[in-house]
């Protein structure tokens, strides 16, 4: 960890980009609310993201979602081995006395859940795309990803939704 931090600060000094997950980079900033939308992910209109890597897809909620929720104090996680369906709820997060359902962008089998969220639910706020991931799923129909939004589309979607306020 220390070596990575040193490398990172050295690289910054040399103006070289060396993000540990090189394929994740901010694609757009939402000018209205400064939320980050990342390249390389797909997005659902209920503000969850999915990253498909080989046979496993990681799912979480977006920066826009965590900002609109407020501080997350509790995460209701499903059991590994259970199944999820596209568009259906699989868990919930609690913030400011509000329980908000989290929906799965794709269908499949839950292979891993982020148990760190039980002790540290705030990871969803501080690191929604990385340490705050919620579940990992083995997709049952990879073609479902086609129906999700890309970063540009999702950014526009957020802007339109916020504008209706």
């Amino acid at each position, binding site marked *: 960890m220390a070596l990575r931090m040193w490398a990172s600060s050295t690289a910054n000094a040399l103006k070289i980009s060396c993000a540990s997950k090189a394929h994740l980079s901010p694609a757009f900033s939402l000018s209205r609310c400064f939320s980050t939308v990342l390249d390389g992910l797909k997005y659902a209109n*209920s503000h969850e993201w999915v990253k498909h890597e080989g046979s496993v897809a990681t799912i979480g909620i977006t920066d826009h*979602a965590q*900002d*609109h*929720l*407020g*501080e997350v*104090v*509790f995460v*209701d996680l499903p059991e590994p081995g259970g199944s999820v369906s596209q568009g259906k*709820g699989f868990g*919930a997060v*609690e*913030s*400011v*006395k*509000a*329980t*908000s*359902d989290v*929906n799965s962008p794709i269908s499949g089998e839950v292979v891993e859940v982020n148990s760190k969220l039980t002790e540290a639910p705030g990871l969803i706020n501080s690191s929604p795309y990385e340490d705050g991931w919620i579940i990992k799923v083995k997709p049952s129909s990879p073609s479902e990803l086609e129906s999700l939004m890309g970063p540009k589309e999702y950014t526009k979607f957020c802007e339109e*939704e*916020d*504008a*209706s*306020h």
Partner: protein
Amino acid sequence: MRGPRNLEVWKMGVVNYLDALKLQEKLVSDRKICKIPDTLLSLQHPPTYTLGKRRTDHNLLIPVSELKQMGAELHYTQRGGDITFHGPRQAILYPVISLREIGLGARNYVEKLELTMIELASLYGVKACAGQKGETGVWVGDRKIGAIGVRISYGVTSHGLAFNIDPDLKYFKHIVPCGIGDKEVTSLRRETGAVLPAEEVIHEQLISCFARLFGYSSITWEESPLILPDNEEIDNTHPRVRNQPRRLLDSFASISANLNKLSRAIQDPKKAVEASLRKAPPSASNPTQNK
């Protein structure tokens, strides 16, 4: 820009907790598929303790058997928030509204629910404010006058807020209210010097504050006393057909003007009562009375 929005308000009187929960589940499904507009339930519960999704039963200080002996019920729910008490003379609002249509997230929604109660309190000269971080709700000093616990599913809300008009505060002694140990619970009766009007008036003021803060341009009132035996499913027929209540469409401007009038009249509590009573729509009654 968004067009004018109407809020449909159901004035329900005293409703059993589970009946209200079943009704909300049906309304949430209907709202998700846009079968109904934004709907607000205005009601009270018989003595009822409820827990949120985190099931913090350690905050119930007496055994469940004792609770039943005093005639209170206990229910576990999917809402956010900790343990609380609902009872007569506590005004409850359960908004079933689409947050997505108005671009609101949970945080902003809850803030507006807090403001709704803060505004109502201010009509009676009571200076209330939102809680500190982690203490969502409405406070007068360090005494809690209003509680919030909400569920959001597919962007549609259920559960909501509870404002203490004049409930029996002794019931709160049997819990650690909202999980916050060192703070008192209070009521409008305790905090204001003003003479309180009939409860129905205060309920309508609360509804008007809600409607204004959430930007509704008109309100449709439905008076539908929903009485269901325990084993009966919610009738798919809309209550307005079953009970034939009158519908009153109030333009927002008239409600807003009346609220302002009340707020100015608060200096003279007697005048405030009269202004409120004139504004209140008459309750559903025998039509021949008006002849």
